[in-house]
């Protein structure tokens, strides 16, 4: 981590927090977890894959926080409830939840004229049902801590995607869910926001290698000319939304995409 960034972090985010991040076994979720660890927060990696989840938890601890793993299938009510009970039993409180998990079908090209109901159920189950199941469990805890709920959406949720149509649909729906839930939970002191990242990932780097034209398309419209870093660019922006510094920010979708998305 850059030294100047460490100084900045300690002044911006002073309060200790207990955070749960779904689907944080890699990519953007991992980046958010490590960014929260940088400022000493306690971070629970809530995911199905234990080995990968524990590895990220270890990285959080190495970054300066306290990383923990809890098994969680966000599309299943009993699993979500059990995971949140574990967090509260072990940590005693909950300050923030990041719903980052997406269906394994998210990167699979598909048009609406050919998608199956079962495939759609996978997208909706993780992105939307998962958000609802989490909301039901975390509301009393976030009300007590005056905490924050953050949904990870995508620029696809603004502009749509010709090749990833079901994914774009659920990402757009998450934005609507945020703007309505923020209005419902505001009087309880709970903030609800969304963040739309564009970041490097093993999958995207592999895709660039196999299809150089894709890299040209993605980066050609990006004013900064690069993909975001999952920790330094996306993770710290997410951490801001979870922190007390964003105490008056709610119902908002923050684009962290280097200016790529043309939606206004």
């Amino acid at each position, binding site marked *: 981590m850059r030294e100047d960034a460490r100084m900045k972090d300690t002044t911006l985010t002073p309060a200790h927090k207990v955070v749960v991040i779904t689907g944080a076994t890699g990519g953007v979720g991992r980046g958010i977890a490590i960014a929260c660890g940088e400022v000493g927060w306690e971070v629970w990696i809530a995911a199905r894959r234990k080995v990968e989840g524990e590895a990220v938890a270890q990285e959080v601890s190495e970054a300066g926080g306290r990383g923990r793993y809890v098994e969680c299938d966000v599309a299943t009510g009993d699993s979500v409830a059990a995971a949140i009970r574990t967090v509260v039993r072990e940590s005693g409180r909950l300050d923030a939840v990041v719903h980052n998990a997406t269906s394994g079908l998210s990167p699979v090209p598909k048009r609406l004229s050919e998608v199956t109901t079962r495939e759609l159920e996978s997208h*909706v189950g993780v992105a939307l049902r998962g958000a609802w199941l989490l909301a039901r469990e975390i509301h009393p805890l976030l009300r007590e801590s005056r905490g924050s709920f953050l949904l990870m959406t995508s620029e696809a949720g603004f502009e749509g995607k010709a090749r990833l149509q079901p994914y774009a649909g659920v990402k757009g729906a998450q934005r*609507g*869910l945020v703007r309505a839930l923020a209005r419902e939970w505001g009087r309880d002191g709970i903030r609800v926001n969304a963040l739309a990242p564009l970041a490097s990932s093993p999958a995207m780097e592999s895709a660039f290698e196999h299809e150089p034209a894709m890299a040209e398309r993605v980066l050609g419209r990006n004013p900064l000319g690069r993909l975001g870093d999952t920790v330094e660019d996306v993770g710290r922006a997410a951490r801001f939304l979870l922190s007390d510094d964003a105490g008056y920010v709610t119902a908002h979708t923050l684009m962290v995409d280097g200016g790529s998305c043309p939606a206004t």
Partner: protein
Amino acid sequence: MPVVGVETPDDPSQEEPLSPNSTILLAPRSDAMQRLADALEAELVPVPPVSDREDFEEWRDGVAAGRAVAHVIVAVWSEGEAPDPLLELDESAWTRRLEGPFLLWNLALGAAAARCDDGGSIVALVQSPSALDAAGFTPEAAIGDGVVALIRSVAASEGPRGVRANAVTTPLRLVERATLAPAPPLPGYPGRIDVEVAGAIRMLLSEDACGLTGRVLAADGGRTLT
């Protein structure tokens, strides 16, 4: 299993040829949707009930196999829900208000994309609360923004063959009156299906909108500002 909402003649060659400007409306059978179809001179093609998700794919494929038409309007229309906080929705309400309609929206827009002729136009009419009125309507707000992303996806995929895809939003059957200040700029909120809503759709379908795709018009008297 019969294909819901698709009447196939015994001999397809006996079908009356459709007008080059023909319009179909994919929507539930209801008074409101029939009034909309009449206002737009569209043929109403019923969608299956949102509870019958096992029929969705067969319905989509049946509609998609029909003759190409110039204009397709899609409205997975609800006759209304009382506002309920998200935390008060049980499994049944969540499925009825969000998952069922949203799954059907995906497949209905897929049918629309397949059915729309080159150079044609698709409009999604989606019930969505404005930001000020969104409390109690989380499922509908989610569907509203989800459909916008879907219609923009369709605009991107079908644009190369000249097909335009846009959306109209309305609070009709969700919000009866605006309770939070400021009041909508225009009187008559939340509007009428066969006047204000039909007018916005008619404009987007027309050649006057030949340069518009991926756009969203809120037909709500100015309640929504985007």
